[in-house]
Each structure stands twice: as C-alpha cells, then as structure tokens.
C-alpha cells in the first residue's frame, strides 16, 4: 500500500512468475554509448489509446531485440492533448535514457500555439509506421464518396465530428476545406470511441477515423468508409476497396505517423545507438503483429530522414492552421 509502483511491480512479478533482470554489463554493438540503468518510454497520452499501444509495443520489442537487454519502463504522462508529455521530454535535454512514443501532436500542438516547443527541439529516432484515416459515415448516409460529402458542404451545413481541437483529424478537415473551398461544422469530442458512437447514433454526418478504430463497424455494415485520406490505397483485404481522396478528385493526403523521439541535444553516439535499436525493432515479430493488429502501413524513416518527413508534414499543417 505504500508504493503503487512497487505494488504493481510485485503483482507483475508474481503473475509472470519470473524475476531476474539482465544487468547491462556488456558493450552495446561497439558504438561506445549505451543507456545506463533504466530507460523510460514516455507516452504523452493515457493508458489504452493508440499512443499507449504503440509505446508499449515499441518498448517491448526493443527490450526483446537488443543485446544486452535494456529495461524500458513505459510512463504515461497525459494532459493537454499530449502537451504535458512532450514538455516533459523538452525538459530532459541531453538525456539519452528517455524516449517518447510520438505522433502528429508533435506538429499540431505547436501549430495551435499553446506550447513552447517545436519538432526541432527533439531528436527524431525512427518513424515506424503510418496510421492513415478513413472518412467514415453512418450506414444510412446519402453520400457514397468524399466528393459527394464535399459537394453537400458547399450547399448546406454538414456537421462533422473531430476528436480534439489539436487532433490531426481536425487539421485534415482543414486541408480538405482549404483545397475544396468549403467549410464543415465541427462537433468536438474527445476520442475516436466517442466519434464512432456519434456516427452510429447519427449525431454527426462524418468523421475521420483510423482503420483500427472502426474496422469492426465497417465489417458489420453499421458504418461506411467513403475514402481514405492516405496517399495510396490500403492493401489489407478489408480496406483495399476504399478509394483514396485523391482518386475522388480531392487533392489531400496526410498520414499520421507513429515513431520514437528522443530529447534534443543527446550525444551522437546515443542517437546512433537508438537508431540501431529501432532497426532491430522493425525486424521483430512483435512489430509485424503490432502493424497488422492495428491496420497500420509499415512506412518507415530513420533519423535524419524522419526529420525531413517531419519538415514536410509540418509545412502541410502550418499552411492550414
């Protein structure tokens, strides 16, 4: 009762029936730098969300695929749509023992102006996958394509749901609005689960959701997908028939990314070490399972390439803010 973490740790140990931690004694891959003691993977959102699942999957896969084994504990630091977690990482400049499970909030929070950081304050390690969005409508919706939805918004008020004011779905709607010269009425909610509920109850006319969030409702026919706002079509059999927005004449594509971020100003060796660890992660069976289970696209970018990707995405986002 005195210490929750110890309590949970004991529970976990008792449950798993295992205990021994591997001490990190040997040299790591000859790079010279290795993390000392425990490493933390910060998840800037609450337990159970997409970021949490990603953070835990990445931490688990790195633990398993790195020799000598590094112990990575996952820490949820939620609040302010991710602002609290990212700001914490910002304060850990130069600390090679911290990682963060990153996604588009890294770009949308600075664009909204409530925080003091930008993506340039951190060290991008690896983009491990893309998590695109589908434009989803209720079963009974009159619209068959995203083009029809946009046309409807030109003539009348079309209420659409967004998961958060700083959410990437809101920015994607802004991109569609700018490209097509329309305006959608926003109904703000707090999560993809709430959006799905609102769609099922015909409270809103459309919403942008990740495939993993709605594939169950799509398969049962309770919801329909009009288009994917990705660059190319999905290859998953359940999703391959969904046309892209571009195919329907709407020149918008944005892919939310999932990846690993380290604090700014870490030693070059530390950066190299984590890139190497992330490369091993990508080869692990846990990674394949994570990607498949969540209907992600295994599009990757490491280190400086990831920085370039962030630059491009940031331009897309700031152009509509």
């Amino acid at each position, binding site marked *: *009762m*005195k210490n*929750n973490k110890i*309590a*949970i740790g004991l*529970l*976990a140990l008792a*449950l*798993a029936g295992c205990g021994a931690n591997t001490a990190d004694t040997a040299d790591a891959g000859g790079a010279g730098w290795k993390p000392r003691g425990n490493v933390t993977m910060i998840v800037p959102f*609450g*337990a*159970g*969300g997409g970021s*949490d*699942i990603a953070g*835990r999957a990445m931490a*688990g896969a790195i633990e398993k695929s790195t020799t000598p084994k590094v112990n990575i504990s996952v*820490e*949820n*630091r*939620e*609040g*302010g*749509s991710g*602002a*609290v977690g990212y*700001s*914490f990482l910002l304060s850990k400049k130069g600390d090679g023992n911290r990682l963060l499970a990153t996604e588009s909030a890294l770009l949308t929070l600075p664009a909204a102006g*409530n*925080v*003091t950081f930008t993506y340039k304050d951190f060290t991008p390690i690896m983009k491990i996958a893309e998590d695109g969005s589908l434009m989803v409508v209720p079963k009974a919706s009159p619209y068959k394509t995203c083009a029809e939805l946009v046309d409807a918004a030109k003539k009348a*008020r079309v*209420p659409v749901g967004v998961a*958060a*004011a*700083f959410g990437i779905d809101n920015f994607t709607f802004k991109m569609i609005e700018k490209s097509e010269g329309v305006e959608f*009425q*926003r*109904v*703000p*909610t*707090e*999560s993809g*689960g*709430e959006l*799905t*509920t*609102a769609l*099922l*109850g015909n*409270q*809103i006319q459309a919403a942008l959701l990740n495939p*993993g969030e709605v*594939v*169950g*409702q799509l*398969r*049962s026919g*309770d919801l329909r997908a009009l288009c994917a706002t990705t660059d190319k079509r999905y290859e998953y059999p359940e999703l391959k028939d969904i046309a892209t927005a571009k195919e329907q004449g709407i020149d918008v594509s944005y892919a939310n990314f999932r990846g690993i971020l380290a604090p700014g100003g870490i030693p070059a060796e530390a950066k190299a070490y984590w890139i190497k660890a992330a490369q091993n992660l990508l080869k692990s069976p846990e990674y394949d399972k994570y990607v498949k*289970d969540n209907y992600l696209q295994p599009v990757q970018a490491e280190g400086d390439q990831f920085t370039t990707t962030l630059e491009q995405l940031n331009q897309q986002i700031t152009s509509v803010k």
Partner: protein
Amino acid sequence: MIDNLVLGFQTALTPTNLLWCFVGVLLGTIIGLLPGLGSTTGVAVLLPLTLTFEPVTALIMLAGIYYGSQYGGTITSVLISTPGEAASVVTTFDGYQMARNGRAGAALSIAAIGSFVAAIFSLLLLVVLAPPFAQFAINFGPPENLAVMILGLATIVSFSGESKLKGLSMATAGILLACVGSDAASGVARYTFGQVDLLGGIPFVQVMIGLFAVGEVLYQIKQGAVAPLRARFRDLMITRAELARSRGAIARGSVIGFVLGCLPGAGSTLASFMAYGIEKRVSKHSDEFGKGAIEGVASPESANNAAANANFVPTLALGIPGGGTTAVLLGAFTVYGIQPGPLLFKEQPDLVWGLLASFFIGNVLLLVLNLPLAPLFAQLLRIPYGYMYPLILLTSFVGAYSIDNNMFSVWLVFVFGVVGYLLKRLDLPMAPLVLGLVIGPLFEKALVQTSAQGDGDLTFIFQRPLALVILAIAAALIAVPALLRRRRKQLERVAH
C-alpha cells in the same frame, strides 16, 4: 439464450479460467484500494503479462480487475476517508461518518451487498437486453447528455448540507475550477498562466485525494489526540434493521447506475453522485445524510457497480468503449486478434458468453471475499490515529505521484489538502465543490456539442423528446420538495 449461458458457464468454469477470474478480482480489489492507481492503469499495465494466455482467460482476468476494483475502492473510503477510486468519492460522505460512529463494519458490509446485488441485476439486463440498451445508448446524443448534466447539477441541492447558499457557492467554485485548461471547442488555453501542467485542466482524482484524505488528516491533527474507536466485534456486524433500510437505496442505485453506465462517457463516478443526490431527495431519512446514513453508502456503491457492468453494453454490443477501462479492454481484444464490433456476439459466442458468465462467478467471489473481511478491515480503526495518519499521508502523496508520474500532482494534492482543511474549519460543504468539478467539463462539452449540432440555436434541445423528459425530471427534483414543504406548512397553518 439459456444455451448461450450454459456454453458461457462451461467456458468460465474450467479450472484455469476460474483461477484467473479469482486472481483478477483479487488484484482488482487491491488496485481499487490504492488511491491514484485506478482500474484503467491497472488493466493496461497487467495486459502484457497475459499475452501468453488464451484470449478468453486473459479477458476474464482483466475484466475481473475492472469490476473487482469497484469493490476495493470502498474500503479506504470508509475507513480513512481516502477514496481508492474516483467512483468511491461519494462513499466517503456517509461511509466515513459511519466509521466514526463505530459502524465501519456495517458500512463495508452494505457496500459489498449493494455492489453484489447491483452487479447481478445489471448483468442479467446485460445478458438479456444488451442490444436494445446499446441502441438506446447511441441515440443519446449531445442534447440528451446536456439534459443529464443539468439533472446532475440539479442534485447539487442534495449535497449542500444545512445552507443552500453555502452549497451553491461551493458548486459554483467547483464549476469555475473546471474551467481551467484548454477549452472544449477551440482548444484555447484558459486560466493556465502559461503552465503546461494546467492545460489538461485540474484533475479530479488529485483534488479528491487532497480534499478528503489530506484535509481530514490535517483536521484530525488540529483536533488533538483522537481516541481510537473502541468498537466491539458485535458492533461491526450489519443489523437486520440496517439491511431493511438499504433495500430501496440499493434498488434505485442499481437502476440509476445501469442507465448511466450504458451511456458511453458518463461513467460510474457520475452515476454514484447522481444516485446519492437522488436518494437523499427521496429518502425518509434525508436529514441523516452526511452524518452516517447507511443509504448514503448503499446507493452510490450499488450505482457505481451497476454502471461498471453496464459499461459492457456498448463495449460488447457495438464495439465502442463505455469508459476508460473498457477502452483498454477493447484494445486487449485487438491484441488477441479479436476484432471488437457489432459482430462480436455472432462471431465469438464462446468468448463473449464465457466472459459474461465469468462476471457472475467473479461477483460471487467478491462477495465471499468482502463480506467476512468487512469486520476484519473495520478492526484497523482500533489503531491509534497517530500511527494511521503518516500512513494515510504517504499513501496519498505516493498515490498522487503514480497517477501520471508528475510532481505537479503531488503539489495539487498538497494544495487541496490545505483547502480541504480550511473548508472544514469554515464548515463549508466539500461535496458540491467536487460535484461541480466532475460535472463542469461534461456539462461544457455537452453544451458545446449541442450548440454545434444545432448550429448555435439552443432551442434545438426542445426538438428532442428524450432530452425534454430528462429536463422535466430535473425540474421536478428541484421544485417538488419545495412545493411539498410549502403545502405542509399551509396545512399546519390551517390546522392551527
């Protein structure tokens, strides 16, 4: 239906599943005990350890943690006024007073019994009527939610204690506190003074740990050496009269909890507040509320358990999370390669029915676990307070830190501990403050959504019959007791 249940029990009663069901509810009880550590975090943290299990076994255990924590949260609420779970805050109002009166055993017993009855009631509804209730839940849009929040605000009068003015002032203070953080519609930062930690708003769990646990400790220290309670073992058992008094409260709490629990997002915390508020309005012993009325424990405890189970209605029938913990459980389905959604009942009957059957078994286990332990736990109060309060303070601060690994939470608990102490000294009721803080953000969100849906025209709410019915209930809740009182006075005057 019966076939399905038989199938379910066949799955749930295998030795392995039975064992893990027990482990789950036991872990849940412990997690519920610890302030700060909620069932959502508990399930998320333990999820990776179940990866090697059969999916149904893993889900049985994880779900056990969830509803087990609803039982555990009560124990510390009653004994040391430290709610282990958000849904157990209301239990401190009367549960802790009962403990001070030497009736801790009875309070814990009625909580266990109420929780059990509510759980079985809501499980039966879940088994028989999940699809229609799920339909009801999704037809519940922003205007209906707004009406429910207005109903919630209307119950504030119940929480006010002797002075309505004090109660309403405190509720307003709570709603004002709820305004801190980024705005629901535009994300603009309000009253954060550039503090990143405040962007997410003032978190309710930290406030309640501060107000109730730390505030109480400070107050007791001020009082000087408190004599340990000399409760005889006989006094720790629940009496027949107390059981009889609680019957109505448990029934009403179960229904309110189930209905609110079906609605995605409303959750068991709100259910416990609403049940308590309504119970106080309708109870014959309403003047005893806040001073150790057993109905004041029975009703919120039944409501939060019914709500926890009802949360599975949208989760299983539609594949949309009913609350935070069921969201994590939905994630767990995916990890085991099961696609949650409306087809779940059809495609995975043995899994769904096995899980549902395990809920019945788990709740029986919890009752068997909790009833004999109630008098035993109550013995803890024999420990002199001087030894207890360092432990309470430690648990509170460590618990606060563990919520989000942030020192800011610890400071919040400290600040609200002092606030709680001052409020007690000034004899200002804390319950309306907490209710304001809980309902404030939900009310604002519903208001913003209704406004967006109705294109800024709030008369939109009058086109929704269900919303109107709920608003009428809210109006009745405020007006009827006042009218009755006036009528009684008139009659008395006539009689004179």
